[in-house]
């Protein structure tokens, strides 16, 4: 990753805020970090106002550490909790209108391809279950039908968290929420299956219990989108506020859900599989050489 992107102009070093200087000196710029090095480098995402113990915030933390090409990535978010952290990172962020993310990302990715034909530019949408599977459902689906080459990540907390607890299409059947007191009458949408049928070339469902696996899935989804078409990650990211999970038990809850309805699932087309195996083989070789 290029250091040029963040270099401080000579003479200005002592006027820059500490967080910025740390980012230049100890950040991801100029090197490729491994997610297992978290806590030993300055992360791209800064302090943010998401709630204590929020595992959507955790997922976003791992997301930034996993990015294969942060200085040439644009993140697209929208109304909902995730943007509270997405907007505090040293990676360009665009706020799409609620429901519009995948339409904006389609245009953006196409424009970047025309403007920078010789460069890889990654576009990643991160939005909530409400944003992608309810209000933005049409835009999400049509971006997949059209085969747009970017990654969509649904941070699914199974509720409209940011607006105080309305049910979404992703809330489980029977669940009672603050603003859905009668209990949900319909099944949770099978987003992963929809994505597969709608034309995604790489699809994964994951509960955030293993940072290495989260990073792997994110990198695979981004790599596959560069060459082949839309990719989709369905991540369980609990809302401890609306689901009244004691914060100390947030990871325990993620582990329990992983055993039930959030079992790890990954699917890709044969050509994506071949392509990813090649990339991962090269990455391993490079890492081996660096150790030597």
């Amino acid at each position, binding site marked *: 990753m290029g250091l040029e992107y963040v270099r401080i102009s000579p003479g200005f070093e002592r006027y820059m805020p500490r967080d910025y200087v740390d980012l230049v000196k100890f950040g991801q710029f100029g090197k490729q970090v491994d997610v*297992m090095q*978290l*806590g*030993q480098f*300055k*992360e791209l*995402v*800064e*302090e*943010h106002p*998401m*709630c*204590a*113990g*929020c*595992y959507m*915030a*955790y997922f976003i*933390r791992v997301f*930034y550490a996993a990015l294969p090409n942060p200085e040439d990535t644009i993140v697209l978010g929208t109304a909902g909790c995730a943007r509270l952290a997405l907007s505090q990172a040293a990676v360009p962020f665009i706020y799409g209108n609620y429901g519009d993310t995948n339409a904006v990302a389609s245009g953006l990715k196409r424009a970047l391809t025309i403007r920078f034909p010789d460069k890889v530019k990654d576009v990643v949408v991160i939005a909530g279950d409400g944003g992608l599977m309810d209000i933005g459902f049409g835009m999400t689906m049509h971006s997949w039908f059209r085969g747009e080459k970017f990654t969509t990540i649904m941070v699914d907390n199974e509720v409209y968290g940011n607006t105080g607890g309305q049910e979404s299409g992703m809330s489980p059947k029977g669940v009672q929420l603050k603003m859905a007191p009668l209990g949900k009458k319909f099944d949770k949408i099978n987003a992963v299956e929809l994505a597969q049928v709608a034309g995604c070339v790489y699809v994964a469902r994951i509960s955030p219990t293993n*940072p290495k696996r989260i990073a792997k899935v994110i990198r695979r989804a981004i790599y596959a989108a560069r060459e082949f078409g839309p990719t989709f990650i369905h991540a369980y990211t609990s809302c401890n506020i609306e689901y009244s999970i004691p*914060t*100390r*038990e*947030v*990871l*325990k809850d993620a582990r329990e859900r992983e055993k039930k309805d959030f079992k790890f699932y990954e699917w890709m087309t044969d050509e994506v599989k071949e392509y990813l195996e090649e990339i991962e083989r090269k990455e391993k070789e490079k890492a081996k050489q660096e150790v030597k």
Partner: protein
Amino acid sequence: MYFVAEVNEKECAKYNCKQCVLFCPEPNCLNYKESGHTAWVWYDRCKGCEICVYVCSDLLKRHCIEMVMVKSGD
């Protein structure tokens, strides 16, 4: 006044571990010192969720993290 996590660095250093660092939701809040082989908390960034205590005490039975009260001026 609010609670933040505090690592007992002497205890933690015995394990060559780092697991809590990998599960804290906050960026650069729980960090890791390679030199001392220990996790440490940047108190200003800690929101007191205790996920690290779950990892260290409930999962790993290592009991190296304690929640402590910060007061104004700390």
